[in-house]
């Protein structure tokens, strides 16, 4: 079985380079198409635990630095399937602190809180204080801007950012851009970046060498996953047109509380698990409301995303890990685990 897994890695990496669709990816894609989702899948398929673990270790070993993405903590949520979202966020932080090569920083891709309440932000701060990585970058989710036009959020987490909280920074040769697509949403639409932010982004990227690896992060996916549920960003195409010339682009999002990914040319899209509660796969439920899972399985559908960067080859490896390893069965899923490995080659 282990050999098979390694074969799969090779097959998958090859597919990523050729932008081809492998058989398993295609089948997965077809399964979703059957439920109404039109989704082009070129790479990044859910794979077995052994595969993910083995690859994850290798990725960390040769990495020049790593950072961790967490998302959708929803502090203040207390309904099924997770009455204690503070505890699961704590578990996520413990997991980050246990990574052998400490990540340089953490990115939180929004929905820190459930209702933008000061007490919820306070609780989040308390838990995040325990993270070994001292630097944390944030972008807001729609739950963080429910009142006061997001002033509370901006005061706490948006210092030095522009507009509704967007900003960029460089770290060891990689250019990171945090975008906000949850403000001033229009009736009938999906996520939105808006004219002012797009103009800023174009300027921010102008003049940068095409060999600079780019990481874009935002709350709502910057690719259309499921319009019926608003899982996409209306003007993301314009934003993506600005990064097309770069050799390696990684797009990290949250919002949908599950792992999804695709590779389009040099751009790799990736969504992270929540630290609070899972949401259903597109079209598999009447709505995108919280998915109720048995208590003993909850931590298998929550998790963190570890991103490792190697200067040689300018590659980024994305490794998702659930908060808890699976016990016996995987609730009718043919795949033994929810670990996913994605890799982008610059």
């Amino acid at each position: 079985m282990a050999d098979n897994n390694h074969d799969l890695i090779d097959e998958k990496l090859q597919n990523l380079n050729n932008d081809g669709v492998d058989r398993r990816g295609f089948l997965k894609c077809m399964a979703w198409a059957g439920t109404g989702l039109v989704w082009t899948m070129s790479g990044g398929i859910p794979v077995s635990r052994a595969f993910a673990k083995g690859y994850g270790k290798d990725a960390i070993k040769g990495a020049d630095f790593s950072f961790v993405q967490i998302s959708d903590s929803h502090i203040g949520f207390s309904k099924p399937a997770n009455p204690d979202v503070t505890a699961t966020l704590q578990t996520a932080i413990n997991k980050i602190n246990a990574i052998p090569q400490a990540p340089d920083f953490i990115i939180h891709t929004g929905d820190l809180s459930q209702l933008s309440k000061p007490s919820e932000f306070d609780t989040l701060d308390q838990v995040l204080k325990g993270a070994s990585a001292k630097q944390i970058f944030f972008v807001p989710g729609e739950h963080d801007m429910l009142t006061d036009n997001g002033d509370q959020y901006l005061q706490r987490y948006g210092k030095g950012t522009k507009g509704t909280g967007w900003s960029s920074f460089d770290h060891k040769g990689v250019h990171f851009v945090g975008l906000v697509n949850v403000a001033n949403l229009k009736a009938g639409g999906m996520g939105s970046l808006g004219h002012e932010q797009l103009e800023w982004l174009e300027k921010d990227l102008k003049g940068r060498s095409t060999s600079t690896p780019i990481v874009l992060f935002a709350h709502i996916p910057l690719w259309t996953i499921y319009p019926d549920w608003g899982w996409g960003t209306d003007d993301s195409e314009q934003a993506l047109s600005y990064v097309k010339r770069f050799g390696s682009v990684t797009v990290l999002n949250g919002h949908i509380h599950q792992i999804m990914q695709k590779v389009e040319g040099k751009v790799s899209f990736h969504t992270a698990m929540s630290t609070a509660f899972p949401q259903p796969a597109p079209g598999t439920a009447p709505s995108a409301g919280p998915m109720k899972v048995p208590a003993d399985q909850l931590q298998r559908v929550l998790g963190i995303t570890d991103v490792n960067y190697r200067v040689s080859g300018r590659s980024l490896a994305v490794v998702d890990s659930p908060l808890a390893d699976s016990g016996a069965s995987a609730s009718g899923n043919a795949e033994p685990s929810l670990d996913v490995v994605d890799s982008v080659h610059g």
Partner: protein
Amino acid sequence: MTTKHIWVGGVAMPVLIGMLLLFAVSPSVKANDQPSVENAAVKIDNFVFGPQTLTVPVGATVTWTNADDIPHTSVSTEGVFKSKVLDTDEKFSYTFTKAGTYPYYCTIHPKMTGTVVVQ
């Protein structure tokens, strides 16, 4: 309610005239009729406003109730009314005093839209 719809729609002029006469003669009839006119409800369930289009007479109060585990809002696209954030089971009411069509949406999940028609 049935009588009201005929009257409101202007389907049967004799009925309309008859009712106007009735109101003029006996204001108590109108007063008795009002409670049923002024109560209308929209349930927010599974990220949907139900009913999607609600038709009410002038003066009706519409109450939105959030039955989801996720917060929603009910906000007029033209700035006529704006709820606070409605957590589970929380309600918002607005009284429509002018005839017209009032589109609204959830500002958190803008794919969620609805319309109140006031006649």
